[in-house]
């Protein structure tokens, strides 16, 4: 648990990966090019800041989106240092320690399957398609803790409408980045890599569901899923797939990582439900990060008014 430290020794995480070191001059070039275009500068600053574990660049023109909770927001330090992101290690602090040098540019999102115009979109292009909104959501982890997080992003439904799903599109399957060199957690087969998730199309079209690119008004830190992650606040946190590279529209329910790992513990739907316990622990209560006493968990994480109708007639014990 405690590792002996030598005063002058840098922790491994601070060592610039060789591949990155060898590419350092490209960054200089990028910087010069960036001086010509603000987007380039933003990108570079974002990389630089996240490498130091600090904040990303501020995101401009964020409008206040709907559904904001007025609950006390979880401090940014907590949101960015307490993460489940096994691609960067299974400890809660591992992602913050190991994701700093993760390269989020260039980055593309492949949109394919049952849509009119399959395409590969550059992340900076994608972000320009939609006005950015701040969405202050509760986030309930399946491990019975929760946070309140001011995300910045755009509605997933807006992107889906633009992609024009065909009548055969019933589900959206998301795939995360597979890069064991940059994501050291993927060198161990703890989960079946790459991480995959999915939503039913009507869930994905729900206005609560967003793709986030920022946090607290800044570019999303790498440990929180940069450059693009899913946020579905009425579902357990593990549905919020990070570092998305692919969205595929399909007819059948797609496989999802935790369900593959332990089907009796993690369902496809994974809606927050205080009445359906995880086989190994109760989901009736949760500890809001920063609180001492646990609070009661609300059905659909408090978003029942908005989303319960999606599941009318379904036995939520069976479809957990």
């Amino acid at each position, binding site marked *: *648990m*405690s590792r002996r430290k030598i005063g002058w020794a840098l922790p491994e995480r601070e060592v610039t990966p060789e591949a990155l070191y060898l590419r350092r001059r490209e960054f200089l070039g990028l910087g010069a090019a960036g001086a010509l275009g603000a987007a380039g500068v933003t990108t570079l600053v974002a990389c630089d800041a996240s490498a130091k574990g600090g904040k990303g660049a501020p995101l401009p023109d964020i409008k206040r989106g709907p559904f904001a909770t007025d609950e006390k927001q*979880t*401090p940014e*330090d*907590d*949101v960015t*240092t*307490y993460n489940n992101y*096994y691609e960067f290690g*299974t400890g*809660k*602090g591992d992602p913050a320690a190991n994701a700093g040098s993760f390269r989020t540019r260039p980055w593309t999102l492949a949109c394919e399957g049952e849509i009119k115009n399959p395409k590969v979109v550059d992340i900076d292009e994608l972000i320009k398609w939609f006005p950015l909104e701040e969405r202050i959501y509760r986030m309930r982890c399946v*491990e019975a*803790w929760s946070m309140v997080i001011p995300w910045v992003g755009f509605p997933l439904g807006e992107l889906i409408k633009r992609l024009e799903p065909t009548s055969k599109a019933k589900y959206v399957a998301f795939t995360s980045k597979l890069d064991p060199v940059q994501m050291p957690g993927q060198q*161990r087969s*703890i*989960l079946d890599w790459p991480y995959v998730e999915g939503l039913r199309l009507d869930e994905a079209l729900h206005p609560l569901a967003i793709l986030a690119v920022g946090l607290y008004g800044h570019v999303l830190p790498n440990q929180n899923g940069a450059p693009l992650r899913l946020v579905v606040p009425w579902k357990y946190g593990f549905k919020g797939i990070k570092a998305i590279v692919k969205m595929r529209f399909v007819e059948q329910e797609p496989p999802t990582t935790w369900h593959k*790992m332990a089907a009796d513990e993690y369902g496809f739907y994974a809606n927050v439900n205080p009445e359906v*316990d995880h086989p*190994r*622990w*109760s989901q*009736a*209560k949760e*500890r809001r*990060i*920063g609180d*001492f*006493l*646990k609070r009661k968990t609300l059905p659909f994480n408090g978003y029942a008014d908005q989303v319960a109708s999606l599941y009318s007639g379904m036995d939520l014990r069976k479809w957990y």
Partner: protein
Amino acid sequence: MVLSPPARRAGGKTFGKLLKPAVFVASCLPLVKLAADAWGNRLTANPIAEVLNRFGFWTLTFLTITLAISPAKTLFGFTQPMRVRRMVGLFAFFYAFLHFATYLALDQAFDLGDIGADIVKRKFITIGFAAFLLLVPLALTSTDRAVKRLGFRRWKRLHRLVYAAAVLGIVHFVWRVKADHSLPILFAVIVSVLFAVRLGAWIRRPVRPRSGEPKNADGTQRSPSRETA
């Protein structure tokens, strides 16, 4: 420098004198680090879970160390650690108690209904609770007086409960973890090796000749129930 025999003895004496206090101080270090981390706000965003996990880890670590002491003697002839085995065992209980107390007081805030339901319904909590209960009589009978009162043989038999407690504790850890089982498996492997050494020692235990008992074919004598560690 070559020490003359008396000097070496004196050195041995100092070592002997320092062993217990040194082990005591070392065994307190996880607590000191916890206090320092709490003071420096380094217990993660979810300090209660962190404290719970740390105490659980140290309980299993100290249990594993107590279980390693007799194999260390069997394999390498180290006898000095035997002198601190009781202390290390009591530290295992100490951290188990802190682990359980953290669960009761900080995690559950003494919500007895929830705690009862947890112990009955959640098998990983049931088994962890059982492991803790098994350690209680061992801690209570750790005094010299208790050994005398029970008689060494009975005392020793009672204290074999530590094997069950270690196994249950490790299963508790395995069942608690979501996906990364590397640490609980490491404990399981180490404890299995320690059990194997004990088993080996038991199988190859020296036989004590007793007069009047029938001899085996090879001329050795069989002795009933030898003491094993």
